[in-house]
């Protein structure tokens, strides 16, 4: 089922949680709503589910306007942040609940409910735990029960609020891969809320980056990571190095450093900030004149194939971060406290008007 969100706004008292949100989600997509806390992502999810009502705007499932339809009638699967399992029911009864509460005319028979629940228990690999109570399960198991319970009513839309927020790192990774497979298998449209960019980049087809009640950028993981459209997106999706200065004739100047920015050849003496990811920073021993920035190595993280190097820029004392392959690191023979020269291989330029939100 496709979902269309049409200029939705929502305020809680004087706090503007959502401001004129427009978003389209195609059938079968797995979409991540990514943003810091307070960005409005959970409010948006709850409005789609019908648990909260929008002050303005409308929501369509396929071509049907469901803005005025209650949560009970929307038939979405919703997985809550802290699972919200029914604490006095067993795992079996939790999963069967959505089928049991149907009006008598459309309620499946006892046997059918049993079969369906067992099928789902098998799917979430909790067959042996069907008589346990939620309190007797681990976090990951509870999460899977919550998913099975939401899937029991065969929703066309699955909404997940911080689905892996309360789990430890290893279980998280496993579960999100599993969610991806599940989503593909059930051919539903799924939206999940997260503040973890790695999670969003890892599983989503499409990422919606939100900040202060507005959408900053919509795109595939590659698009938002490789080509962030706003400084916020650049900053939120990973570590970043900032190079402030004045832009003049394709050169970003600060002190006696001149960085070449060929894309901005026509620029004329404007303030600008260059953004570069740590893996786009190269380190060399010798200065290459004005195109390189002198810095002192302050820390070296040696774990894994990529070496993370923290540096302090000379003159401005700004903090910089670089990631280089281990081989390169060995070749250079770097040590803490040494002076080196860095060069951003690629700089994304944002001018002051990009920062106006």
């Amino acid at each position, binding site marked *: 089922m496709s979902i269309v969100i049409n200029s939705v706004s929502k305020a809680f008292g004087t706090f503007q949680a959502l401001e004129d949100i427009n978003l389209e989600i195609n059938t079968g997509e797995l979409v991540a709503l990514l943003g810091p806390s307070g960005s409005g992502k959970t409010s948006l999810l709850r409005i789609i589910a019908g648990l909260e009502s929008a002050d303005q705007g409308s929501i369509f499932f396929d071509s049907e306007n469901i803005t005025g339809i209650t949560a009970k009638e929307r038939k979405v699967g919703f997985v809550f942040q802290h699972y*919200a399992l*029914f604490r006095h029911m067993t795992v079996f009864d939790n999963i069967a609940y959505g089928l049991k*509460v*149907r009006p008598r005319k459309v309620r499946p028979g006892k046997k059918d409910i049993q079969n369906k629940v067992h099928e789902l228990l098998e799917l979430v690999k909790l067959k042996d735990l069907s008589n346990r*109570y939620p*309190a007797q399960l681990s976090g990951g198991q509870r999460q899977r029960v919550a998913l099975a319970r939401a899937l029991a009513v065969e929703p066309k839309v699955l909404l997940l609020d911080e689905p892996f927020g309360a789990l430890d790192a290893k279980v998280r990774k496993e579960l999100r891969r599993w969610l991806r497979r599940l989503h593909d298998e059930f051919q539903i449209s799924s939206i999940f809320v997260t503040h973890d960019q790695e999670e969003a980049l890892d599983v989503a087809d499409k990422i919606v980056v939100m900040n202060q009640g507005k959408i900053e950028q919509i795109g595939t993981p590659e698009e938002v990571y490789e080509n962030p459209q706003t400084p916020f997106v650049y900053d939120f999706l990973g570590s970043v190095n900032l190079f402030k200065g004045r832009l003049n004739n394709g050169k970003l100047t600060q002190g006696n450093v001149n960085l070449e920015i060929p894309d901005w050849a026509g620029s004329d003496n404007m303030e600008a900030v260059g953004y570069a990811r740590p893996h786009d920073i190269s380190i060399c021993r010798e200065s290459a004149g004005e195109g390189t920035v002198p810095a002192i190595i302050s820390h070296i993280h040696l774990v894994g194939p990529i070496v993370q190097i923290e540096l302090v820029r000379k003159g401005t004392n700004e903090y910089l971060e670089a990631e280089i392959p281990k081989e390169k690191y060995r070749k250079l023979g770097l040590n803490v406290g040494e002076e080196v020269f860095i060069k951003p291989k690629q700089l994304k330029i944002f001018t002051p008007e990009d920062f106006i939100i």
Partner: protein
Amino acid sequence: MGGNIPLGFTDTPLGSSREAADPKWVQWLLISIALTFLGLFLILPLVTVFVQAFEKGIAVYLEAITNPEALSAIKLTILVAMIAVPLNALFGIMAAWAITKFQFKGKNLLITLIDLPFAVSPVIAGLIFVLLFGSQGLFGKWLFANDIKIIFAVPGIVLATIFVTLPFIARELIPLMQAQGTSEEEASITLGAGGWKTFWYVTLPNIKWALLYGMILCNARAIGEFGAVSVVSGHIRGLTNTMPLHIEILYGEYQFAAAFAVASLMSLMAIFTLIIKSILEWHGKRQMSIENH
């Protein structure tokens, strides 16, 4: 080598730190003070009630609790409790639901109002009803014209009892329902259940122990209420006397053995209530530990 340090700590008995904090004699002193206090102010009066009740022999005791006036008082007391407790349960659930599941203006005022019966003297509560429904009261003329008796009749006693016992159940439910939040109800609704089914299958099972506990407290107070009921009852023997009023009348007539006999019956009811309360508490705690472990 470093691993030895934490291992060494686990060998220390867990209780040692507590024992070190409080010397033995302090423990004993505190326990004896508490027990003496309990004995003087609770056990002794309770024993006295039973001793006095049987002072003139078992025959007088039995006569005292089986004569028609006593029986009528017992019946009326039970009737009042049976009306007041379910009504207050209903009100308590609705009030707690409204307060914990919805956001609305005047919520704090409602919470304060629920506590009002605790703050007002029961005698004043009784007087309020006399002023409202008595022959000189606000609705007095209309009630007289339609031949409806509230004051000095059973309805007045029921009303006064409901007023006095109103906070017990709501007060028990509100903190629990606040702690449990609304997400289970929301889950139920997204799964297609309506409001009634959600209440019946999700909310009620979650609050049942607190509800029962509140009902028992409410029941105990409904049976024992004296002040408010005394004002509205009119003390008509065999008609509008509840057990506490009956005891007072007997005592006023120097029938000490009979008064204490009925009092002993009420004490037994109270003890029985406490036993049920403890069982429920124990059961509730066990349930909680299963569900929240």
